């Protein structure tokens, strides 16, 4: 079962992960990554009140589906679920979920990291911060995220 969902509503990470293995005996490893909205203390502009995630409808799903197809070509996956929220999200809330299921743990871990690294750098989503003081501000892309995604480009190995 392979699913990509872009939605405004929250998700239940545990239920999504459990669904990938339910009723199957060929799944030995389920890796789940949940990305949450953090509020680090004492940042410039005061406390974070919320993030607003803008996305490119249509392209967001297609881009994630493309990376999911790459992951399936690269690792033997029994299933995967990717959910990315958009809209206003407050600290502590879920933003993104990647779950991968495979017979073996190495494939499940590698595919989940691969999908997250590409989500960060190539899925068309943009985060805007809303803080106690100061104007709303678009978050800038991080070079570290580009580096994380690029480590998958070398074709020599299945793990970075």
């Amino acid at each position: 079962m392979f699913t990509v969902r872009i939605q405004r509503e929250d998700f239940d990470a545990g239920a999504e992960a459990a669904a990938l293995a339910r009723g199957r005996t060929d799944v030995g490893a389920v890796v789940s990554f949940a990305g949450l909205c953090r509020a680090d203390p004492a940042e410039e502009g005061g406390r974070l009140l919320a993030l607003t995630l803008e996305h490119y409808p249509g392209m967001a799903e297609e881009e994630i589906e493309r990376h999911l197809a790459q992951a399936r070509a690269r690792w033997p996956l029994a299933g995967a679920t990717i959910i990315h929220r958009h809209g206003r999200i407050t600290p502590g809330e879920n933003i993104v979920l990647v779950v991968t299921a495979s017979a073996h743990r190495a494939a499940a871990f590698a595919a989940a990291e691969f999908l997250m690294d590409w989500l960060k750098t190539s899925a068309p989503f943009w985060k805007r911060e809303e803080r106690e003081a100061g104007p709303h501000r678009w978050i800038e892309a991080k070079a570290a995220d580009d580096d994380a995604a690029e480590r998958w480009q070398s074709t020599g190995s299945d793990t970075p």
Partner: protein
Amino acid sequence: MKIRYFAWVRERIGQEAEEVEPPLDVATVADLAAWLAQRGEGYAHAFENPRVVRAAIDRTHARPDAPIAGAREIAFFPPMTGG
């Protein structure tokens, strides 16, 4: 040809989407960005540093030298910050 804008590119230009008919010598994504940049203050601001503006042709990431002939929808946006 439909042009869509996202995040601060959208805010600076002041609209989400528009229909444009660029002249025939506008052949690539970079040409299109340069042509749009001349359409007003907001556009000039959005494209003031063209290297940080990314593009997609028909919902697929496209490099500045990608040809735009035959495209139905071209989007401009900042580097992605999802995930």
